[in-house]
């Protein structure tokens, strides 16, 4: 499924012509709203998750690393071997003077917000890692062609349509806009239902209170 498949359904919800819409611009207005709905779903459900197909090369002689392209948040790293997640504060406590230390392979990684991550120790060569991460559903840009893939299971799709249609009505104001909020609520309900699958997948799960709730180790919450 691609964005244009959803775009025409949004036009249907807005009672617009599929071929010559008058009040909404399909490419510049509705496609971005569909992407916005997918972004909201990613933040709430922690999907889509990806295990990097190509190896990530660490920057040698540096603790701080840039995020892999398209990655929103790293979930786990394999080294060779499992690279354990830690925090900068734990390193400060248990490995004073850890910054700048050289080693033959990395043992720990830690997040630095959502734009960088760090490794300990530094390695002198471009060590290859396999990184699992929550990915940005669509590479965002100023223009979407409609051929961008929708990287969610099919059950999400109509939720995106309802969310985009509700947000599109913001410019109408009045009763139409208020009625659109009901469609938005459907979208939230759908994510709550789909988030239940997260109990099996582990790290991130959606609650009706909006947003992911997760732990580094999810096993205790599966039972």
């Amino acid at each position, binding site marked *: 499924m691609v964005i244009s498949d959803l775009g025409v359904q949004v036009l249907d919800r807005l009672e617009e012509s599929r071929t010559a819409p008058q009040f909404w*611009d399909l490419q*510049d*207005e509705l496609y*971005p709203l569909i992407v*916005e709905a997918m*972004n*909201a779903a*990613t*933040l*709430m459900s*922690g999907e889509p998750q990806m295990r990097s197909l190509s190896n990530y090369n660490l920057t040698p*002689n*540096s*603790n*701080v690393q840039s995020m892999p392209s398209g990655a*929103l*948040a*790293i*979930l786990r790293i394999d080294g060779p071997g499992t690279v354990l*997640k830690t*925090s*900068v*504060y734990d390193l*400060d*406590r248990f490995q*004073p*003077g850890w*910054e*700048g*230390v*050289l*080693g033959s392979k990395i043992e720990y990684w830690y*997040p*630095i*917000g*959502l*734009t*960088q991550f760090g490794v300990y120790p*530094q390695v*002198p*060569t*471009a060590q290859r890692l396999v990184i699992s991460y*929550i990915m*940005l559903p669509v590479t*965002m*840009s*100023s223009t979407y062609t409609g051929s961008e893939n929708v990287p969610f299971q099919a059950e999400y799709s109509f939720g995106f349509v309802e969310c985009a249609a509700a947000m599109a009505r*913001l*410019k109408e*104001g009045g009763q139409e*806009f*208020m009625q659109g*909020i009901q469609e938005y609520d459907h979208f939230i309900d759908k994510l709550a239902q789909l988030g239940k699958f997260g109990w099996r997948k582990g*790290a*991130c799960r959606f609650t009706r209170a*909006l*947003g*992911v*709730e997760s732990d*580094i180790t999810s096993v205790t919450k599966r039972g």
Partner: protein
Amino acid sequence: MAIVANDILTQVSFHLVEKVVKTTLGTAVSPGPAVVTPPSMVGIYNGAMMIVGSGATLEIITASSVTLATFTATFTYSHAGTDPLYGATFPSGQPPMFLFTQTEMLNYLVNAQQDFLLKVRLLYSISQVDYAVGEQYFTQPNSAIRIERIARKAQPAVNTTLGATITTGGILPVTATVTPGSMLGIVPNAILSVGDTSNANGAYTESRELVEVISTTLTTFTASFLNSHAPSDPVVASATWIDLFNTSTADLDMLQQNWAIDIGDPTNWFQDATSATGYGVYPNPAPAGTLELWYSDRGPDSLALTDTLSTLDIFTPALKYKVLEMAFLKDGEQRDTQRAKFCTENYKYWVMAGVKFMRGVAAMIEEASQRPTMQTVTQ
């Protein structure tokens, strides 16, 4: 391509039923002032800022001397007539009875971004500050929301050459004393990377190895080597840093009454009793050195149409709703408290989703550093 300020303002324009410029230049131009005839003049008025071109020749131009079919602008780069011309210009009522100006909307966007980064704190920066002997108080970086961590450079980086030939023939390591180009940063127990960093093709060679310094003199160090090396082989190690304990002047007063006159390498940092954006270190530094600051970043204080946003792309809808909230709450024809409230709630939702996501993946640096103890302060 990352989302830029104009992309958000374009989406805002659609919600506000404002026309946007989306055409081509229509006339080839060279650097300097030129009159152009675009295929469409929709959204173009005297003073409108627009974006023209792409890649290295992307630039912002300002329209002047506007007619029904042409406008004048000064260009920095040459452009073909087919180059894209676009921008969120908010033309309703322009000029002079405007509903919104572009400068106003860019200011809203700056405020929205700073508010979002303050609440979600997803962006962290690391910078270094050199300090002189006795320089105890500092001002945090302009874009810092809050300092999260401070470390002091304990050893400088090593970047020299081996200065000796090492020949190994068997499986046992060879212990040798060498005279490198510089001993800066080389101390006992330091781990050094020794060996070629790359060959002609940029691939790593086999001679690289990590060695631990056994002992040093003023001009030499001794280590055990597994591989053979040439005198020109690089010897490299990054600077090492020691984190400072986060404390307060009140704690220092309690634990070490004469702390203000103590001298040495900084071991603690504090932010109280300094200034609104100040911080200090204890003890009074001697000798001079370098601090490394980790801080949550609030982004820039101004934005141009072509500026990339500091907020990650996925969060940019939050900025849109915050800008819309401000637009709907403004006095005038566009005032609409119902839609403003919806945008407020939607913005809050994005903030909450952002915070929960940050916590969900444990990406937030929010924990205070170790609290001081009598031992750490008096050591």
